[in-house]
């Protein structure tokens, strides 16, 4: 069994970047100065990810206003809507409003990623909205059913996957909190399966993963295990440890072992103990450890402190008496 570590979503903006972006909004600095600050901050996140030996790097997704914005601004059919609460957190996103069936006129993801000089594509993890969550959280005025929309987003995101793969990106994760917060049944569940069938067909050897958080992954496991992706991640702050199972067909198991809801750092030994317990029980071939949800629910300092837990726990798991 192999154990990998990585971020699973956005990292918080550093205090200098917070100050710069605030200044930009208040007209106290230039867009060029803020861009320089973004590049600097991305390099800092990448340096941290490398220093900690994480197996994929992200640059922290510092530029993304929210999970959906590049698509709401780059695909046809959308306007960017009102500030809306992001699940049960005190953070918000601007709800995309879909006025017509969405169309992908050009690739949008690559342009929203850090330049390859900062994050090398072959080492990068690309984090995208999952089709089910995307279709479920927007304001749908398009006339399409949610089922049709979920399926359509699967096809559109599959196009992005093809484009990313062609550009050398090989690790792509889909954020699907809604799958576990409001689990679908019936035709909607089938639409989610169909959406990932499109994505799976486009992956062509790229490593794909669905990451769930803010809800109990175990309760939806049968559905999650039907999704045509290379791995399934669950949030261990919400999912009971003894109810986690490995996806079938030797696919990867993602374990969200850092809780972004608290600044309290996890104990690496406790993380290792819990992971070992799961591994001994379900025998996954590959495990990815990461934050259970977006670490940008925290300020930068405690988020960085938490991230240090990943290599420490991995070391314990790789050491004498290692798991699996």
């Amino acid at each position: 069994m192999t154990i990998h570590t990585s971020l699973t979503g956005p990292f918080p903006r550093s205090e200098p970047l917070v100050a710069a972006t605030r200044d930009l909004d208040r007209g106290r600095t230039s867009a060029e100065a803020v861009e320089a600050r973004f590049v600097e901050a991305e390099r800092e996140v990448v340096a941290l990810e490398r220093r900690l030996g994480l197996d994929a790097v992200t640059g922290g997704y510092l530029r993304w206003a929210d999970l959906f914005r590049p698509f709401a601004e780059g695909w046809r059919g959308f306007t960017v809507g009102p500030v809306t609460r992001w699940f049960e957190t005190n953070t918000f996103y601007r709800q995309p409003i879909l006025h017509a069936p969405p169309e992908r006129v050009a690739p949008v993801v690559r342009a929203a990623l850090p330049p390859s000089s900062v994050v090398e594509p072959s080492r990068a993890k690309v984090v995208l909205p999952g089709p089910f969550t995307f279709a479920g959280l927007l304001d749908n005025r398009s006339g399409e059913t949610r089922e049709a929309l979920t399926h359509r987003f699967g096809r559109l995101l599959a196009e992005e996957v093809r484009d990313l793969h062609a550009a050398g990106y090989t690790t792509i994760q889909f954020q699907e909190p809604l799958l576990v917060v409001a689990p679908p049944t019936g035709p909607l569940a089938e639409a989610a399966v169909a959406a990932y069938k499109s994505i799976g067909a486009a992956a062509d050897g790229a490593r794909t993963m669905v990451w769930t958080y803010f809800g109990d992954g175990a309760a939806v496991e049968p559905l999650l295990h039907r999704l045509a992706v290379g791995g399934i991640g669950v949030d261990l702050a919400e999912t009971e440890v003894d109810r986690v199972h490995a996806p079938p067909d030797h696919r990867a198991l993602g374990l969200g072992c850092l809780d972004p809801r608290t600044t309290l750092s996890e104990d690496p030994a406790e993380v290792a103990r819990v992971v070992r317990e799961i591994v001994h029980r379900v025998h996954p071939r590959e495990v990815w450890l990461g934050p259970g949800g977006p670490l940008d629910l925290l300020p930068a300092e405690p988020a960085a402190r938490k991230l240090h837990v990943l290599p420490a726990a991995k070391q314990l798991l790789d050491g004498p008496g290692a798991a699996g």
Partner: protein
Amino acid sequence: MSGPLFPAQEIGSLAKPRWQLLGQRGEPLDLAADEEFRIWNERLGFADVTSPEVRALLEGRSRELGAAGVRDLGALFALRYFERAGLARVYDGEARRIEMYEYPIRQMRGFRFYGHVRSFDNKYYRKAACVDEVGLEHPYHTEEFDFVKSHAQAIPKLPITGPYTLADWSYNEHYLGRQAGWKGRDARRRAQREFVVEIARKAVRPTLQALIERGCRVIQVDEPAAGTHPDEADLVAEGFNAATEGLDATFSMHVCFSDYASLLPALLEAKRVDQWAWEFANRDSEGRDGYEVLKLFREYGDTRQVGLGVVDVHRDEVESPELVADRIRRAAKILGDPSRIWVNPDCGLRTRRLEVAWQKLGSVVEGARLARADFERAG
């Protein structure tokens, strides 16, 4: 409730006038601020323009008055604004406050601010981590209340952030860290319960006691976080009880923009709540369906007062007094007892310009009068 039916109140903050914002920064008033000051002073008579302090403000020497002096004037303005609008209970519109979380937390022990969290886009807020036992450096809002009490011509009240919201808007390191083993859902909930009750007992309660000792008899506990986690409504109630049990005051709980049905009946376990101050108008349509949720009070046998939101605070369009009266009548019919109703905007009118807020409060008061007349005619 004795006295006339449908007394009016405000349940949130008021926009700060431009002259206050400029004056607090020590900047001279511009034409708009000067005009704003004079127009409102003509209406409300909140300031003596011949006094040296007010002259300093109006003559571009606000530094002489100091930020505290300008805030006093802002508080007086809001008091008179509410009084002249015809409200039965008044306060200073939170003229001295800029937010409702960081200030109370900074009066407590056991918290640490690490940095900023992104709210959305390029907007950020500061969220403290509880890193040690909660304690209280000194009770807060006491000077604010002293000022209100000494100047109010109507019954003074004081809004204060509730223990659940203070806990929910903080990171819980200390109490979660005391939980043994994996910090899963159950451990997090136990830790959150302990945290809420500790804030309630060790910080909010002594503050409430200090306020009551100074003569504060009407206290509004704001719990905006209550709607964020419906499955923790019992913790909201438990925190409220821990903060207020045995205290001699009239308490209301303000919870805004929530799916109230999801909070009940757990929230009703907040024993010392005398009045539930909720929003209704923003979800109301011609059928008055925004008030259907009041049926839950009957369903659960809760007979406490209701602070009825009758105007929407997120729209400039001013509701007519007739619409307000219609909403009150509808609510009274559902509750089956008009004497339980107070009327107010859905939440603080801070989101609206002072002129719009004034008109909306006018509609609240006039709508209440129309509804009252109807009920009196009906005997």
